[in-house]
């Protein structure tokens, strides 16, 4: 009886396995536990594609440690509980690296499963410090840059390069990412105030708010319009906020996090100007690095469309730095790979240098390109690296 039950049960379970691939010695397996459907799919897929491009490049160049990289996937359905299952699923299929969802909240369950199993995980583009040692654990990394770096960089750049003196902070309390941008801004602001800048006001809103009229009224009540508004928000509420700010006749420069990158939404605010976004590389074809243009072409060839935002790039970076660490360690064993990753200091990648330490598996500073949207046309107008990295206290706030 027990044999039959076991047979039935195994049959049942194996239906779920796409390819019951066991980790053999001939290949290295990268598992994607990311959203292939649901709310996160639109964000995970581009980063996945970029990671795939890097994997294909490696395979074409002879593989990693002489082995071909094989890819397994599981859909998180943009659901946390499903995320844990997806993580377990790719681990069962022998993943040596687990790429998890772009967003920390949605990626954490799968990353935790990898951490538990002693396997290295990379968030494709999460920008929260918890996507690393401080949250998931010592085997977890992110391919992107911390959100506070974005807020701090934009404030410093606006003050130094654009001569902005009065600042206003508008925070969308929806996500940790938003709060992170403003945390970086909050850390930078006192330094700038010593040099003559001034924070003239602050307010909060919710991403889903149908109208931010009340918040706008408060800005308009100021004796004079602030030079710059630090807008810590993301899609879709961010577009709404920008549109309403401009519709109310507020023309201050608007400083953003990288979350507002992309030209796909610009039609919502016709002739938008004076709008600044930090990006790791430009999707607009004007990146100073010609290799970025090549990547953009490769991406278009693979997916049929241009990159939709800079969040394509960190997926590439994740596979890139991991594979370098594996190459140096000579193994995919987590401990050795992590040790190699933690030795990286300003490791050059296609999209800016990367540094990992035993305290931080994330970037506390980065070289950013600043994109300005002028009359609805985005383009790179500058480059900025923070005068000093954002300290741990500000990151952990």
């Amino acid at each position, binding site marked *: 009886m027990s044999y039959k039950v076991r047979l039935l049960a195994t049959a049942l379970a194996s239906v779920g396995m796409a390819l019951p691939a066991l980790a053999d010695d001939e290949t290295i397996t990268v598992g994607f536990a990311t959203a292939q459907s649901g709310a996160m799919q639109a964000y995970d897929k581009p980063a996945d594609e970029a990671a795939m491009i890097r994997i294909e490049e490696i395979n074409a160049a002879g593989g990693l440690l002489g082995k071909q990289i094989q890819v397994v996937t599981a859909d998180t359905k943009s659901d946390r509980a499903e*995320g844990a299952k997806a993580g377990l699923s790719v681990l069962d299929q022998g993943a040596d690296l687990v790429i998890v969802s772009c967003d920390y909240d949605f990626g954490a369950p799968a990353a935790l499963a990898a951490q*538990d199993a002693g396997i290295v995980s990379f968030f494709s583009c999460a920008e929260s410090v918890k996507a690393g040692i401080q949250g998931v654990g010592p085997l977890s990394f992110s391919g992107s840059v911390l959100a506070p770096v974005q807020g701090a960089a934009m404030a410093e750049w606006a003050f130094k390069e654009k001569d902005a003196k009065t600042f206003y902070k508008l925070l969308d309390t929806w996500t940790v990412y938003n709060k992170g941008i403003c945390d970086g801004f909050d850390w930078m602001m006192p330094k700038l105030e010593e040099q003559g800048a001034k924070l003239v006001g602050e307010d909060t809103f919710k991403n889903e708010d149908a109208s931010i009229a009340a918040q706008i009224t408060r800005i308009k009540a100021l004796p004079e319009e602030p030079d710059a508004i630090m807008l810590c928000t993301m899609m879709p509420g961010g577009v709404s906020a920008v549109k309403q700010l401009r519709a109310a006749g507020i023309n201050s420069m608007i400083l953003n996090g990288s979350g507002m990158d992309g030209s796909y939404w610009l039609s919502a605010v016709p002739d938008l100007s004076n709008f600044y976004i930090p990006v790791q590389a430009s999707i607009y074809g004007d990146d100073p690095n010609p290799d970025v243009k090549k990547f953009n072409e490769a991406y278009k060839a693979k997916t049929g469309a241009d990159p939709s935002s800079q969040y394509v790039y960190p997926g590439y970076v994740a596979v890139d730095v991991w594979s370098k660490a594996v190459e140096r360690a000579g193994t995919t064993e987590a401990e050795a790979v992590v040790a190699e990753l933690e030795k990286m200091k300003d490791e050059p990648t296609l999209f800016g240098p990367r540094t990992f330490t035993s305290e931080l598996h994330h970037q506390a500073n980065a070289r950013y390109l600043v994109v300005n949207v002028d009359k609805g046309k985005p383009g790179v107008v500058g480059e900025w690296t923070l005068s000093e990295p954002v300290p741990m206290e500000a990151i952990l706030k």
Partner: protein
Amino acid sequence: MTAASPTMSAQAVPPSAVAEHKPARFALARKTIMTPILLSLLLVAIAVLTYLTGSRPFNQTVIDVFVRVTLVVGLYIFIGNSGVLSFGHIAFTCLGGYAAAWLTINPIMKASALPGLPQFILDLRLPYWQSAVIAAIFAGVAALILGKVLMRLSGIAASIATFAVLAMINTIYANWDSVTGGTSSVVGIPIIRTIWPYLIGAIIAIFLAWAHAISRSGLALRAARDEPTAAAASGVDIPRERLVAFVVSGAVMGLGGALTAHSVGVVTPDTFYLGLTFITLSMLVVGGMGSLSGAVIGVVLLSALIQILRWMEAGISIAETTIALPKGVQEIALGVIMIVILALRPSGLLGNREVTLFQRKRNR
């Protein structure tokens, strides 16, 4: 539309029985005990089968099912017995989930992630089963306090008021950064990947629901649901009995919250919001709102359906060809199937009936 129809439930008892004394209730317990036993056996069978497959993702799927069983049974205790639709019970799940997080996360991590917690909680680190018990009690106490105020309401006003509670707790937990970590995921909760604790949790919930249903309070509440005037006339204090059910179900929801936290290892406020509210309510209504068996079977069937659809989405290989549904069809199919079930069986798959061994003859 029609007058309240007499319940078909094996546990249904006319209002007059409420006043009956103890021996009668022992008889009632004997008569109805088969229902929770059968339901538990069903879950045990599922657990054993899962254990034998040894597949980790499938194991996690079944863990999820058991957590849902706990939650839906918790909903049943209040909604099924009182007939008042509550949109707010997931608030107690939220309380339970965070309480479990507070009690089990490594103190060093807690001190940095949730510095606003009181010192004695910061220093505490309990095993998961103790934290689950405390989480349930915590949620139960919260339900007692909130229920005191809310149980005066009935009908849709009560539904909305409970929803308002959910929205309030969600807003507070999403923004009280120092204590709840705000909207960010709280991590560091020990992850329990064996199936048995969840099985035990679900079975406890089932037996609690059964014990409440045959208690004096549960009987009175169901009598009041079916014949409000008669019950009020025979001295049933409806708000009080509702409160009892609210507290018991709040505690079970809290337990479910703790189980959720340990199954995934993270808690966030929006896990415990509208999505979970509607999926659990749907499972209850599809199974049969007025029946404990309906609650359990509704979860098992809908979960099985979801799983099958997911497998179909992932692709099934039949003789060399892989047939796969387009991504996203699973949710659409689920919605359509739910509508069809409800159209064919408006009072759910089981209606008011319970699963028993024998079709018992009705007392005349």
